[in-house]
């Protein structure tokens, strides 16, 4: 039996329940995460401005920790492939497809860094917060210019002239029609950013893990070296060498032994238990908890172990027989190895090369011997310019055996053909990512030549 009253009551409940969800609808559909900021709120005050520049350093870490030292070593003659992952095999064989995981990852990471830096450069000047002093603002901006310079420099030496984006990506429209620049234009942009950074950054403070004026000088010296602007390279290298904040540490292995951040470093990215660098894992054998993908070659093992070549630098190696491994990155289990971006030793060798190129052989030889002596290798006497330049190249090889130099040096000095057998100069540049060529009309479907 149905009673009308009861029926109405039940319908009422139904309508009411339906109604509850309906009214609160729009609110329930607006959800936001608790671990991220809306883009419009990303840089609005002192706190967010500081967080943004810190984030840019984290982006720098993301390609300098592992990708870049790998690209600078396994591609050349110091390190061989010893694992299972093909991306390393491809690099070792110098048969790098456009979808090589490491070149793609590095390329993308560098542009992420650049987007972070661009955002800081675009938005920090507009921050109006008493907590952010003019000095701090300038320093943040200066760091952003430096980081962008470093990003474009690494792109330039790895991939050639690249697309130059100088503003933050607010939507995909920003990339429309941006064509690749020439390598000269890319390096010009690096110079422009370094010039700006030099103006904005203060003189050196204690830190070695954030960009300071000296880091700007050092990168500029490197840039001039790559551009064969020898006088400028010498000038800027000297500016850093003269700074008493930096000196060659002895013994050699001190700079890569905890607690790190030695006077050797001009710029050294720091890691900690909360911010780990497990790059050692690629170098150590499995019996020590590693993957052993990157193995020192027979050639570099014999050079480093030779007292007249490697000297104290033999401490870059450990193990014996078929199981010799590299220990530049050695914080097994701690995962706190720094990324060595610029060491003072590099400035000496930049200056040596720049001086030799300018015919200042004695001064060049002095710089070379400074480096040799630090590694307990006896001084040499070379009077021929070509021989001296070769000796400097060799010195760079052993001094920076497992750092991101060897490949770029062989390409820069055009020796990659003779030393590595990579005679096809097209392969001296890495390919652009496959997906960039497909997705970016500005590239007109073209990768680097040869790819």
């Amino acid at each position: 039996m149905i009673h009308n009253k009861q029926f109405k009551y039940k319908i009422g409940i139904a309508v009411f329940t339906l109604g509850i969800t309906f009214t609160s609808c729009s609110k329930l559909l607006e959800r936001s995460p608790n671990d991220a900021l809306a883009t419009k709120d990303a840089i609005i005050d002192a706190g967010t401005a500081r967080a943004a520049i810190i984030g840019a350093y984290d982006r720098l870490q993301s390609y300098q920790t592992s990708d870049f030292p790998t690209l600078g070593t396994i591609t050349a003659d110091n390190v061989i492939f010893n694992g299972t992952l093909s991306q390393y095999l491809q690099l070792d064989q110098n048969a790098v497809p456009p979808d090589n995981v490491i070149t793609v990852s590095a390329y993308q990471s560098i542009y992420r860094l650049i987007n972070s830096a661009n955002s800081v450069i675009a938005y920090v000047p507009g921050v109006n917060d008493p907590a952010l002093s003019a000095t701090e603002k300038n320093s943040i901006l200066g760091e952003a210019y430096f980081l962008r310079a470093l990003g474009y420099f690494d792109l330039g030496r790895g991939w050639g002239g690249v697309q130059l984006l100088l503003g933050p990506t607010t939507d995909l429209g920003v990339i429309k029609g941006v064509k690749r620049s020439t390598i000269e234009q890319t390096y010009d942009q690096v110079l422009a950013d370094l010039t700006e950074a030099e103006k904005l950054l203060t003189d050196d403070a204690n830190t070695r893990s954030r960009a300071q004026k000296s880091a700007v000088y050092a990168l500029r010296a490197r840039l001039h070296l790559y551009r064969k602007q020898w006088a400028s390279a010498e000038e800027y290298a000297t500016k850093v060498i003269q700074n008493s904040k930096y000196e060659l540490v002895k013994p050699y292995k001190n700079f890569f032994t905890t607690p790190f951040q030695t006077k050797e470093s001009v710029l050294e990215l720091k890691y900690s238990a909360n911010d780990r660098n497990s790059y050692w894992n690629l170098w150590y054998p499995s019996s020590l908890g590693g993957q052993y993908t990157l193995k020192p070659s027979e050639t570099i093992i014999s050079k480093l172990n030779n007292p007249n070549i490697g000297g104290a630098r033999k401490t870059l190696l450990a193990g014996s027989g078929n199981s010799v491994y590299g220990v530049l990155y050695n914080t097994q289990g701690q995962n706190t190895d720094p990324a060595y971006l610029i060491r003072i030793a590099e400035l000496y060798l930049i200056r040596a090369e720049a001086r030799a190129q300018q015919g200042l052989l004695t001064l060049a030889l002095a710089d070379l011997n400074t480096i040799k002596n630090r590694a307990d290798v006896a001084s040499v006497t070379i009077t021929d310019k070509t021989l001296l330049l070769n000796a400097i190249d060799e010195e760079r090889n052993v001094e920076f055996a497992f750092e991101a130099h060897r490949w770029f040096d062989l390409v820069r000095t055009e020796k990659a053909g003779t030393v590595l057998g990579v005679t096809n100069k097209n392969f001296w540049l890495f390919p652009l990512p496959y997906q960039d060529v497909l997705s970016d009309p500005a590239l007109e479907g073209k990768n680097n030549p040869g790819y």
Partner: protein
Amino acid sequence: MSKIVKALATAVPLVFLVANSFAQNGKITVKGKITESTTGTPVAGATIQTNNNKATTSNDDGSFIIIVDDNIKNIHISAVGYENYYLKLRNASEYTIQLVSENSKLDDVIVTGYGTQNKKFIAGSIVNISGNELKEIPSSNFTQLLQGKASGVQVSANSGVPGGGITFRVRGNNSINAAVEPLYIIDGVFINSNNNVQTGMGGQTQTSPLADISPSDIEDITILKDANATAIYGSLGANGVVIVNTKKGKLNSKGKISFNISQGRSQALKKFEHITGEETGILVNEAAINTAKDNGIDPATITLPFPDPSVLPTYDRNSGLFRNAKSANYELNIRGGSDKSTYYIGLGYNNEESIVKPSGFERITARINYDNYVTKNIKIGTNTNFSRTYRNVSSNDNNPTGVINSAIFPRSYVPIFNADGTYNRAGSFDNHLALINNLDNNAVGWRTISNLYAEISIIPGLKFKSSFNIDNNDMFENNYSNTLIVAGIAAKGSASSIANKALYLTNEQVLTYVKRFGSKHTHDINALVGNTFNTVKIQNTSASGQGFATDNIKAISDAATRSGSSSRSEANLISYFAKASYTLDNKYTLDASIRADASSKFGVDNRWGYFPSAGFTWRASEEKFIQNLNIFDELKFRGSIGLSGNQNGIGPYAALGLWSSGYNYLETAGTAPTQLENRNLTWETTRQADIGVEFSILKKLLNFNIDFYNKYTYDLLLQVPTPSPTGFTSYLQNYGAVRNKGVEIAVTSNNIETKDFTWTTTFNISFNRNKIEKLASDIALGASGRNVSILREGNPVNSFQLYKQLYVDPQTGNAVYEDVNKDGSITAADRQIVGNANPNYFGGLTNNITYKNFNLNFFLFFQQGNKIMNMRDFFLVHGGTQNFIGFIPRQLERWQKPGDITDIPRLTTYKSNINENGGAANNYGGQVASLSSRYLEDGSFLRLRNVSLSYNVPKSVYQSLKIQSIRAYVQASNLFTITNYKGLDPEVSAQSSNQNTAGYDWATVPQPRTILVGLNVTF
């Protein structure tokens, strides 16, 4: 006098006998007895009531007497769980009436979207499988049991690890980046089917959360395949819907206790093999000599790696890997019901070891299903499942320090132990025995799936139901790597602990109207309207520590360094839906539904989606002219079209422009841009058309069910690659389209049906063709950065792109590849699509034979045309050598001297002239880098999935023991497999954690052969 009254088509008939009525002083006495027609059991407690409120109830034997005024024309009879009935009094001595049970299930009534429907009139494509059909196969996961049982449903285990991931696809892959898993609904609860074990275990979907359900609790499973059936689920329905109903008690039934126990043993059908130390030495020497020759060096001048290979010892790592794995299963269930309530209680314990040490799976389940009629018109109830799972997890597939890789990769002359008895390791690999003995990773899941509902009958046929549903999945993982395994060596012990909570809450209201009217029930209406509010809250907390005092201390609080993290997210979905179906004359049915969904995941400008569908059914066998043909016992045509959506698989905040946190440096918190805003982001939509025909011939000896479908999914939720200079690598957009079309055929044959002997055969086969119709650009992925899989417009998903190896030159021994662009050299442009992982067809054949007390069931499963990328051969059978990596026996078939005919090239590690086709560099490294089509194998197979023999012990044996039935059974699964595949097992998917990388075999645990004996006793 008796009379049969038919009632609603959606219910069970009930016999209602009313006896003797006679006049007495203006009063009449009405007498009767109530029984249930199907079982003959009396119905007690029914209310017999006149309209002046005189009432009585029926006795335990169903009988009643009521004296009423003689002017009374009607008596109202009601009983809990049955439809109301109005008895018209006549001058009869006896009344017999059939009433209708409200919710007991008829054979031809099945649960579909938010309601029930009569099978005869359903316009959608639906498969219904009873729990009985599934009990013959031993598996802890009900989804695996559906393999080969339902047409259009592709089911494949990713590995032989118990409780592991299952690939389950209804009519192919609809999507690229969004989910392709169907929606699972258990007793009306929308459940979470995402793997929530986070411990890295290689490339597989590690676990299936559906293994939390005990298959023995399942009454039946309905799979909704086409748009007409799924559109009502709107943005959740595009990938199909799997509706699971668990067992319930029956009203007025005596309690039944049933106990089931089984024990099994599992073994590998095929094991990994290795070559001897000496053979390894010979191969390595040969490579060194060949490499020297290629480099123009006199081989006589080089130092051979092994001057005398015959002294090399051989160590067998493979035999230590496998075991004779045990499994045990115990179930107890109790079911019954009173006149007002029903109950089902199921308890289960399941324990299975993996055939490869040390993985294992254990599950404890407890279920209670309870319904109660509070009044005649209000029913409340719950279906609640608690389960605890325990997994001993171990890494395999693409992880070099996984158990299997650590056994199969090292060269066989490398000792397993050092001279001092410690574990020896080589290259990138761990020691397999160290792993087996020391792996200490476990995942404990606590799952509650429950609903609580109230259902109110407002007027006959009109019901309102409201329910609150919860699926709470808590997963606790504790991993400890001690200093004896690679993962813990450097860290001096490494531990992590992860707590993950996935909470799915749904509130649902449905108003249903089911009515038949007209003189001969010519009009039949089945309509519903409702809404749901659904929220998904995920919370994750993890801690890790490194550096422990000793291997015996494992608590993270004691670690030298510790770190922790937490995250949470929430997504909401608001839905309104309506569905109506109208049947005329039992012949023609029109069916339409619509759903509106709004999700918090989508862009502010595009939040609402609307999903309509329409279908028709024509039961041609009801037409005179068809009946006159005398061919068809049943003939039905179906057709439907509609839209359904997909929103699963994208993040809860996917549409927002974000700067994320955690980009820290120098112990300072940092932020960085991570996601571009997309205000227009919305559902991907699947438009599906389906035409089906069902017919029975030869007196229902043969029953056919055939479907053709065409599914077009557009506005894919696609991570469209963006140029890197933007600082973003992809942008989630609605872009792209995928099509799946196919044919499904299911046949049931009732071969023989006599008193003592019955034999039925069921067969189904499904063909699906998948094609990516629109894609922004190629997406290459898979094989740990080797990009062996590719998504490319015009090709199916899960395609493989490799260099096609034509032959090994018998003269030079070098591999020759197809030069696609004919430019005379091998470059990246010569890589091509050489096959895909999707089968051309798959299906199953089941035979069920009963002779007296014996029952024999055997089930064959087959699939044809899918390719498998054999990564084991990729690493261990190739044209080069690599420090620390060994070979398997097939490597011995390599080219050795001019004239040899083989597909395995000459061993060399020469690395110049990488683009030369037929050059030595491409035997191993070079441009090809071993990405040769020779590793891509045919994965077709036919397998005797299961044989089951059972015996019902005759009652005479145990009559005195108050036992109702005893059934003893023996089951054997995977007795044989016919395949050309050279790996251990063709049913494999080592990279299944990504839906677009199906078909890899990579150090994966094979499907075991299991023999199991069991006993089932019912009291």
